[in-house]
């Protein structure tokens, strides 16, 4: 068993599949991270993905252009995020409940629309939709092991990678990142500094909508070549769990999404050696919860440790730190 796992992990094909199945999760996790940093939980990511997947397929089939499809899909996804923002930020509705409601609207609405357009409920196979291209990267493709993993992936996989950098930039390099952080960490402080928290939250919602749009379009126009009902398959929810594991950073999102992607891909392989498929499929979700719990636990412990240390120094009144900070 261990031998088998080691064999799988060392194969480039495994990592190819990992990257592929991690990409959509990574995209939505980034979306969940950036909204969470601004202090709003985007529970509607699942719905965003569903609408993006459907609208992408419909528009690409209607126009014959995969790029227009992608654009329309992203627009649909952003729309969902904006509606969430409207209810949660303008009408003061509970953000989580509104998100859940929007997901329901999406689950039913996508099938409803698909049926109204094609007469089919389950799959868009009657629509001649297009597929996003895969890319072969010139030099990298020739590197022995890495080339097989990194090159030849769907364009969205690379967009996911670029998104990590982009979100990292937004959060750490751009001024808006500080405003996002201020809004999420101390809303009153942000307001007192003249920042409009609602604007910031809307901004993050739009970003998360774009990211979920990419992810949704990937699912129906790359990952597979059709929209199928419920195609998001809970990835939006997984993202909200992974967001916690990510610890609020773009780089953390990679690890969090990989946690799911690695086990998800491994599950396919473990099935091959006769592990019970149903049990194996529970694994990625179980691992995500585990990661979720471990991360919060470690964070709490670290916090307590910090407090204890501070007390030790305060009690002994050596207070070197205090002096240093008071002094100057």
């Amino acid at each position: 068993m261990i031998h088998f796992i080691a064999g799988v992990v060392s194969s480039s094909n495994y990592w190819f599949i990992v990257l592929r199945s991690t990409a959509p999760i990574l995209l939505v996790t980034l979306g969940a991270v950036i909204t969470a940093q601004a202090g709003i939980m985007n529970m509607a990511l699942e719905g965003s993905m569903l609408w993006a997947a459907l609208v992408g397929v419909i528009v690409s089939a209607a126009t014959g252009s995969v790029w227009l499809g992608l654009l329309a899909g992203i627009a649909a996804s952003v729309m969902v995020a904006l509606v969430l923002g409207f209810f949660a930020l303008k009408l003061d509705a509970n953000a989580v409940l509104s998100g859940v409601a929007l997901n329901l609207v999406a689950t039913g609405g996508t099938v409803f629309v698909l049926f109204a357009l094609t007469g089919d409920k389950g799959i868009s196979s009657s629509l001649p939709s297009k597929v996003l291209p895969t890319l072969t990267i010139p030099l990298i493709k020739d590197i022995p092991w890495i080339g097989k993993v990194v090159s030849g992936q769907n364009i969205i996989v690379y967009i996911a990678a670029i998104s990590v950098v982009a979100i990292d930039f937004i959060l750490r390099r751009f001024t808006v990142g500080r405003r996002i952080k201020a809004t999420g960490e101390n809303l009153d402080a942000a307001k007192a500094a003249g920042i409009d928290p609602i604007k910031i939250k809307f901004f993050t919602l739009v970003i998360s909508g774009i990211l979920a749009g990419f992810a949704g379009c990937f699912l129906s126009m790359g990952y597979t070549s059709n929209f199928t009902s419920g195609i998001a398959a809970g990835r939006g929810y997984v993202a909200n769990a992974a967001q916690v594991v990510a610890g609020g950073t773009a780089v953390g999102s990679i690890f969090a999404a990989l946690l799911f992607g690695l086990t998800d891909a491994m599950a396919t392989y473990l099935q091959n050696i006769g592990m019970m498929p149903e049990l194996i499929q529970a694994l990625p979700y179980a691992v995500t919860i585990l990661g979720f719990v471990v991360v919060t636990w470690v964070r709490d412990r670290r916090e307590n440790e910090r407090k204890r240390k501070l007390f030790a120094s305060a009690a002994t009144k050596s207070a070197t730190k205090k002096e240093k900070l008071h002094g100057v």
Partner: protein
Amino acid sequence: MKILKVMGLLLLSAVLLFPAVAQTPQKANVFLLISGSLGDKGFNDSARASLELIKQKYGANVTVKYTELGTDVAKFAPSLEDAGAEGYDVVFCSNNFNSAVQEVAPRYPKTLYVMYDGWINGDIGNVYSIQYKNSEAGYLAGALAGLMTKYTTDPRINPSNVIGFVGGRDITGINDFFVGYIAGAQKMNSSIKIIYNYVNSFTDTAKAKDQALVQYKSYNADIVYHAAGRAGLGVFDAAVETGKYAIGVDTDQASLFGNEPKKADLILTSTMKRVDLTLFQAFEKYMSGQKLGGQKVYVGAAEGVIAYAPFNKAVPASIKTELEKLQGDIKAGKVTIPSAFTMTADEINKLRDSVNAAK
């Protein structure tokens, strides 16, 4: 459309007014209930196609109607009830309705319930149930795959003797395909190894694609056969992505990808399970006055229900001939094919293990 409805209503009232007259019915209403959804380019679409055949033959003498019910089994019985109460003469439904049919059919003895892809539990006078010899379909696919994987002059075929299988669920109906597939492949290629996965769903195309990708890429499978309903369409996506072959199931799936030649070119053939034909034939019999209620039939290649779809041009003539001969033999009952229905769980496990390419 409206005229049709009015006519349907007229017909309906005619049927309701003169039930006794219709010894050999001249007119009939048919209702097809679909579990899951259409668009699978297979099983369910095939069932819907039967309605077309019926319309073609009987024209204005029949009204046909279908509805997609999804996976919520709670609504199956009320839907059947509805069909019965509205006086439909013939109701088509799949084996997923088994318990609902048991519940409802006795209440509407005038309606004939045609249940396909499984036998009804118990004996009910107005239920006609049809079981298919899935294992024969599997056997056909296995034979093709077993031969093709040796045909290494084709650049898409690698030297390893590994083929793949993606099943919907680890259940008897699917394992029947699989058992036949193994037997057929072994018959044609004694050193065959098979890599297999179950999607655990008949709808999750993405998962099926993931699994097929693993089979193609990590285990060097040249050909993957699927029996996973709508989810199985993901296998074709994987075939396109890796440039390898796949075998379709239930209908001539290659012909359904007219707008996607890349996909169609990689589907070597499909093992057809003519749900459309069996339902049509059942209806013909009904119209000719035969009593079908209470019967359970087991149909396969002999009845022309299970057969190869036209072969892809990638299949060399020599293989084609050999397979056509095989198909004839099966039709004539000259080949013994194991069936999952007669095997214990252990036997199935052992069989799968013995050919598992991952072990």
